[in-house]
C-alpha cells in the first residue's frame, strides 16, 4: 500500500475521471446501448411534435399519416397517452390549474410546447413521421411584456374565475392581490431612510433571458422490467427525479432506478422537471420496450427551461460623499409559460441578497413573478442572484457618476468589513467570513487601476476611436447548501476505499475532489479511492448538484463518513496491535495505524481490511454512511472582478481586453478544478454582456433557435483570465468550505457591463441595457451625438 502523502486538500491533482472523456469512452445518454444494459437493446426513439405558436387553442391533432409512416410504433397525443394528469408537480408545489399537461390539450402556451410524440424504430423514422402529424391551432394573443402580464388584462390561466395561486414570501402581506398572471410575490420592507441622504439615482434595468445550453442537450432512456422502472437520465438530480417519477407513476421509490451516466453539462438546465422527461417512461410502459429521447439543439433552445428574465426599477439613495443608505427595488420576474423553479427565485434567492456586499440600513423590495407565453423559466448558473447583483452593481456606478466619485471609492466606503463577519444583513442573510475590501483592493492592484484611469483620460482627451472602459463587480452570493447530503465510505478487502454520494457531477470534478477529501481522512491515496455517484440504487438519498451546494454538503458528508470508518478501523487496529483503542491513531501521511507515540510498530489498511473482511474474525464492518446536515448554514462565496474593455465608437463594438477576478471560495480542495469552475462562470457572464440573449419576436416566436443566433461564448471572446485565489475559511462548516460553481457570473456580468458604460460615459451615456451588442452601444452613442 503506497503512502498517501496527505494532505491532498489544496493540491491540483489531475482529474481521475478524465481518461474516459479524453478517449471518447465516456457514455452519455445518446451513446447507451446493449453493452450498458441488455434491456436497452432495440430501444425505440421518441420525437416530439411541438407548438409553432406562442399562445393558441389546440383545435385538433391528426396523426393518421404519422401512424402509417414507416417504422412508427405509436403516436401519442393528450387523448391517448393514458397517463393521469399528475398533480401540480414535477417537484414544484403550485396550484393544479397551473400544471403543464404532459401533452398540450386545450391550449399551447409557448413555442416548443409538446403536443404529440411519435415513437419509431429509428430516430430518422420518428423525425420523418413527426412531420406528418397535423396540428390545427387557433392563435390567441400572446402575453409577452412583463408589465402587461402584471396588469393581467389577458389572464393566461382562467378556471372560470380568477387567479389562483400566490406564493408569498416576505414580512408584509401584499396590500392587494395582483393580477391572475402573478404566481408568486416576495416583499421586504426593513429599516428607514436616512435623513442625511441627499442623492437618489433611479434606473430601469433588464436582465435578458439566457439558456443554460449545455453542449449535450437533454435526454432520457427508459424501460420497465418486472414492475420496476429503469431510467437513464441526463440529470443533475437523480434522486429528486426518482421522487417525482414515484409520485407520477404511483410506485414505491425502491421500484424506480435512476442512473445518471456521463452528463454533458447542466448549469441548471438538467434538473429533470420537464414534461418530456416525465412522459417518456409511460411510452416505454405502453409499448413494452425501451424508449429513448434526446433533444435536438433547436428543440432544446425552444423548449428546455431558460434562465434570467428580470426587470428592475431600481432606486439607490445615499449622501453626496458616497455613503449608500437605501435601496428600493420594484422587480418583475418572467416565469414563462408555467410556474417552475422561477416561483422560488425572488423570495428564496434574490430577497436575501438585497444588500449585496454593502452595509445598508434601508431596503424596500418588491417582486412579482409573472407568467408569459415564452418557455418556462428554470434555473441557470446564478439564478435569482446574478441579475439582482448585476443591477445593484450597475446602480453603484450610476450613483458614483452622479456624485462625481470614483466607483472604486464608493464601493470601499460601503463594503461590509472583515471585522463585522459573520454579518447578518437587514435582509436577513448571514454572511460568513470574508474580506471584501481586501479582495477589491487586490483586484484593483492587479489591474493597475490608477494607470488604467490615466490611459482612459488620455484616450478621452484624444477623442480616440477606441475608448477604454474599466468596470468593477463586487459580489457575494447565497448558495443553496440547504438540507444536506449523505455519503458512504467502504473499505475493500484490498485496503482501498469506495465512496458513494447522492450528488452527481456534470463536469464538476466530484470524483477527484471527493477522493482528495476522503484521502486526507483515511490516509489512502486518492487513486485508490473510487467514487460511485449518479445511481439511486447505490445510496438512499441525494439532492443533487444545484445551487453551488455539492462541496459544502456532500464534501462534508464524505469527510464525516470517512472519519466514521477510521473510528471503526481503529478498533480493528487495536486488536492487531494489542493496544487500547483510545491509544490508536491513524497517520494519514503513511496510511498506517499505530499506538500514539510509537509509530515504528504499525499496521496498514490492508491488514485492518483483511481482518475486517474475514468472516470469522470480523470485528467491525468497514463501511459507514453518514448524513451531513447543513442546518441552514449556507455559505456566501465572494470576490471582486475588474474588467477592462475597448469600445470602438464608430461601430459600437466592445472588446474585453482584460478580466481580473479575485475570488474567495473558501478552502479549495483542488485549486485547478476551482479555477476551471470560475473560468466557466466568468465566460457565461461575459457572454451575457456581449450578446448572448434568448430573443422572441412580438408574436412570441423564438428567434434564437440555434448556436448561430444564440451566441454562447466562443474562444475568441475571452482574454486570458487573471485569477487570484483569496482563501478565507468559512465558519459555517468545520472544513472551511464555501462554494464556487456559480461565482463567475456574479462579478463578471456587472464588471464587464460597467466597463462598457464607463468607456462611453464621458459622451453622456448613463446606462445601456444588456446585452451590450455593438448595435445597442452605437445607438446609445447616436442618441448623444
Amino acid at each position: 500500500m503506497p503512502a498517501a502523502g496527505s494532505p491532498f486538500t489544496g493540491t491540483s491533482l489531475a482529474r481521475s475521471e478524465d481518461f474516459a472523456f479524453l478517449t471518447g469512452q465516456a457514455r452519455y445518454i445518446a451513446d447507451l446501448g446493449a453493452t450498458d444494459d441488455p434491456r436497452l437493446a432495440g430501444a425505440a426513439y421518441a420525437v416530439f411534435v411541438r407548438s409553432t405558436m406562442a399562445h393558441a387553442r389546440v383545435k385538433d391533432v391528426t396523426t393518421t399519416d404519422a401512424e402509417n409512416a414507416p417504422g412508427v410504433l405509436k403516436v401519442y397525443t393528450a387523448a391517448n397517452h393514458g397517463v393521469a394528469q399528475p398533480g401540480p408537480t414535477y417537484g414544484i408545489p403550485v396550484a393544479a390549474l397551473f400544471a403543464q399537461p404532459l401533452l398540450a390539450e386545450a391550449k399551447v402556451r409557448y413555442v416548443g410546447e409538446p403536443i404529440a410524440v411519435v415513437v419509431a424504430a429509428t430516430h430518422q423514422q420518428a423525425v420523418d413521421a413527426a412531420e406528418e402529424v397535423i396540428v390545427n391551432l387557433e392563435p390567441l394573443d400572446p402575453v409577452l411584456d412583463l408589465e402587461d402580464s402584471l396588469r393581467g388584462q389577458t389572464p393566461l390561466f382562467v378556471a372560470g374565475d380568477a387567479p389562483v395561486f400566490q406564493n408569498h414570501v416576505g414580512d408584509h402581506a401584499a396590500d392587494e392581490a395582483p393580477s391572475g398572471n402573478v404566481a408568486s410575490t416576495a416583499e421586504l420592507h426593513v429599516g428607514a431612510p436616512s435623513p442625511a441622504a441627499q442623492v437618489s439615482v433611479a434606473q430601469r434595468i433588464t436582465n435578458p433571458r439566457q439558456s443554460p445550453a449545455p453542449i449535450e442537450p437533454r435526454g432520457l432512456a427508459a424501460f420497465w422490467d418486472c414492475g420496476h422502472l429503469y431510467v437513464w437520465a441526463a440529470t443533475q438530480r437523480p434522486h429528486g427525479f426518482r421522487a417525482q417519477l414515484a409520485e407520477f407513476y404511483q410506485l414505491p421509490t425502491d421500484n424506480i432506478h435512476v442512473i445518471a451516466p456521463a452528463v454533458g453539462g447542466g448549469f441548471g438546465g438538467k434538473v429533470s422537471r420537464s414534461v418530456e422527461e416525465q412522459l417518456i417512461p409511460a411510452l416505454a410502459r405502453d409499448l413494452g420496450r425501451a424508449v429513448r429521447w434526446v433533444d435536438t439543439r433547436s428543440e432544446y433552445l425552444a423548449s428546455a427551461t431558460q434562465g434570467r428574465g428580470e426587470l428592475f426599477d431600481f432606486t439607490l439613495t445615499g449622501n453626496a460623499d458616497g455613503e449608500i443608505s437605501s435601496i428600493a427595488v420594484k422587480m418583475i420576474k418572467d416565469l414563462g409559460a408555467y410556474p417552475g423553479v422561477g416561483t422560488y427565485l425572488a423570495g428564496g434567492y434574490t430577497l436575501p441578497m438585497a444588500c449585496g456586499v454593502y452595509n445598508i440600513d434601508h431596503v424596500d423590495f418588491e417582486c412579482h413573478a409573472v407568467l408569459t407565453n415564452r418557455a418556462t423559466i428554470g434555473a441557470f448558473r446564478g439564478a435569482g442572484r446574478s441579475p439582482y447583483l448585476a443591477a445593484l452593481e450597475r446602480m453603484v456606478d450610476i450613483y458614483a457618476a452622479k456624485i462625481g466619485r470614483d466607483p472604486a471609492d464608493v464601493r470601499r466606503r460601503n463594503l461590509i468589513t472583515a471585522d463585522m463577519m459573520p454579518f447578518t444583513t437587514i435582509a436577513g442573510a448571514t454572511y460568513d467570513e470574508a474580506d471584501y475590501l481586501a479582495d477589491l483592493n487586490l483586484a484593483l492592484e492587479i489591474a493597475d487601476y490608477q494607470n488604467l484611469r490615466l490611459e482612459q483620460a488620455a484616450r478621452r482627451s484624444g477623442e480616440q476611436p477606441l475608448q477604454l472602459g474599466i468596470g468593477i463587480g463586487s459580489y457575494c452570493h447565497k448558495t443553496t447548501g440547504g438540507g444536506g447530503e449523505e455519503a458512504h465510505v467502504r473499505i475493500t478487502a484490498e485496503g482501498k476505499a469506495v465512496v458513494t454520494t447522492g450528488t452527481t457531477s456534470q463536469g464538476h470534478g466530484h470524483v477527484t475532489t471527493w477522493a482528495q477529501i476522503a484521502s486526507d481522512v483515511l490516509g489512502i491515496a486518492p487513486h485508490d479511492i473510487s467514487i460511485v455517484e449518479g445511481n439511486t440504487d447505490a445510496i438512499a438519498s441525494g439532492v443533487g448538484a444545484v445551487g453551488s451546494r455539492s462541496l459544502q454538503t456532500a464534501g462534508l458528508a464524505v469527510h464525516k463518513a470517512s472519519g466514521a470508518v477510521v473510528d471503526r478501523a481503529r478498533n480493528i487496529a487495536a486488536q492487531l496491535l494489542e493496544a487500547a483503542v483510545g491509544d490508536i491513531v491513524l497517520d494519514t501521511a503513511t496510511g498506517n495505524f499505530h499506538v500514539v507515540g510509537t509509530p515504528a510498530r504499525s499496521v496498514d489498511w490492508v491488514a485492518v481490511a483483511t481482518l475486517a473482511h474475514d468472516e470469522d474474525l470480523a470485528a467491525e464492518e468497514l463501511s459507514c454512511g453518514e448524513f451531513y446536515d447543513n442546518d441552514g448554514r449556507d455559505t456566501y462565496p465572494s470576490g471582486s472582478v475588474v474588467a477592462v474593455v475597448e469600445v470602438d465608437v464608430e461601430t459600437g463594438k466592445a472588446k474585453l481586453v482584460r478580466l481580473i477576478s479575485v475570488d474567495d471560495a473558501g478552502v479549495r480542495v483542488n485549486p485547478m478544478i476551482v479555477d476551471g469552475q470560475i473560468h466557466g462562470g466568468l465566460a457565461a457572464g461575459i457572454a451575457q454582456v456581449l450578446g448572448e440573449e434568448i430573443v422572441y419576436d412580438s408574436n412570441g416566436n423564438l428567434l434564437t433557435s440555434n448556436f448561430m443566433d444564440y451566441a454562447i461564448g466562443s474562444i475568441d471572446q475571452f482574454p486570458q483570465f487573471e485569477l487570484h485565489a483569496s482563501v478565507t475559511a468559512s465558519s459555517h462548516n468545520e472544513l472551511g468550505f464555501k462554494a464556487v460553481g456559480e461565482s463567475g457570473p456574479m462579478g463578471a456580468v456587472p464588471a464587464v457591463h460597467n466597463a462598457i458604460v464607463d468607456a462611453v460615459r464621458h459622451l453622456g451615456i448613463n446606462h445601456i441595457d444588456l446585452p451590450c451588442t455593438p448595435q445597442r452601444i452605437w445607438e446609445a452613442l447616436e442618441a448623444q451625438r
Partner: protein
Amino acid sequence: MSSPSFSIAQSLDEALTAMAAGARPVAGGTDLVVGARQGKAPLPGSLIAIDRLDELAAITPATDGTRIGAMVTHATLMTNPIVVEQYSALADAAALVGSPSTRNVGTLGGNVMNGSPAMDTGAPLVVLGATAELQTSAATRQVALADLWTGPGQTSAADDELCVALNLAARPANSGSAYVRLEYRRAMEIAVVGAAASVVLAEGGAVETVSVALTAVAPTILSVDVAGVLVGEQIDEATLKTVAETAAEAATPISDLRATDRYRRHTVGVMARRAVEAAARRARGERIAIPVNRALGIGAAQ
C-alpha cells in the same frame, strides 16, 4: 428525410452528364445537409459529388489574370500565394468564413452558386472583376457576377450548368484590395455587414481606379460607384468620409435579429471606408496580413 441517389463523379464529363440528367452537384455539402436537417429544404432527388474533381481545384495563372477552380476551398484561398499577394480581398474574406472545418470543406464555387447576399467572398469577387465560368455537357459561358446573382439565394444559372471556375482579371501595378467585415464574434458568424475595396494608385498616390462592393445590405452583393468621389483624389480623411457616406446611402439593408437597417446602413459605411483605406495601404506596397480584419483590429473581435 428522402434518400437521394448519390454518386461520386470521377470526371468533369461524368458530372456534367449527371447534371444534364437532373442531378444536383454537391461539393462540401454543408449547406445542403444543414438545410435538410433543419427542414428548410429537402435533399435533391439525385446528387453528384464533385469534390474529387482535381481539375476544378486548381488556381492557375492565365494570360489575362487568374483562374480559380470552383472546388478551391476557403482554406486554400486564404493561404495560396497568388490569391494572398494579388487578390488579397478574396483571401481576407476566405479567412473570415466560418471555422477551420467549414473553411476546409466549403468551396468558392459552392459559395458563389448559393447566391447569398451575406457571403463573404462575394464582394471581393465583384471588386476584383471576377466572372463565373458555367459549363454544361454542351457549352461553356462566362457570366458577370452582377448577371449571375438575381436575388437572395437565386442565380441565373440553368439547372444543368456547373460553375467550374471563377476568372479574375490581372492586377495592375500599384493595386491593392481588402475585405472588412463587422463581426459580433469571430467564428461561425454570418456577416452583419461587410465591404470590399480594390484600389489602383497613380504616380503620386492619387487614385486611378477604385471599386467598392458591400455585403449583406441588399438582395445581392451591392456594387457602389465611388469613382466620382475618389478618382484623381488622394485618400485622406475627407475622401474616406465621402466613401462612407456614399456606401451608406447606396445600401438598402433589412432589419433582422442581428441588426436594424439603420445600424447596418451606418456600419457598412464604416466598413467601406476601412476597406478602401486598407486597400490603398496595400496598393502603396504595405504588407498587411490576412485577414485585414484581424491584422488591423478593425471590424472584428480582435
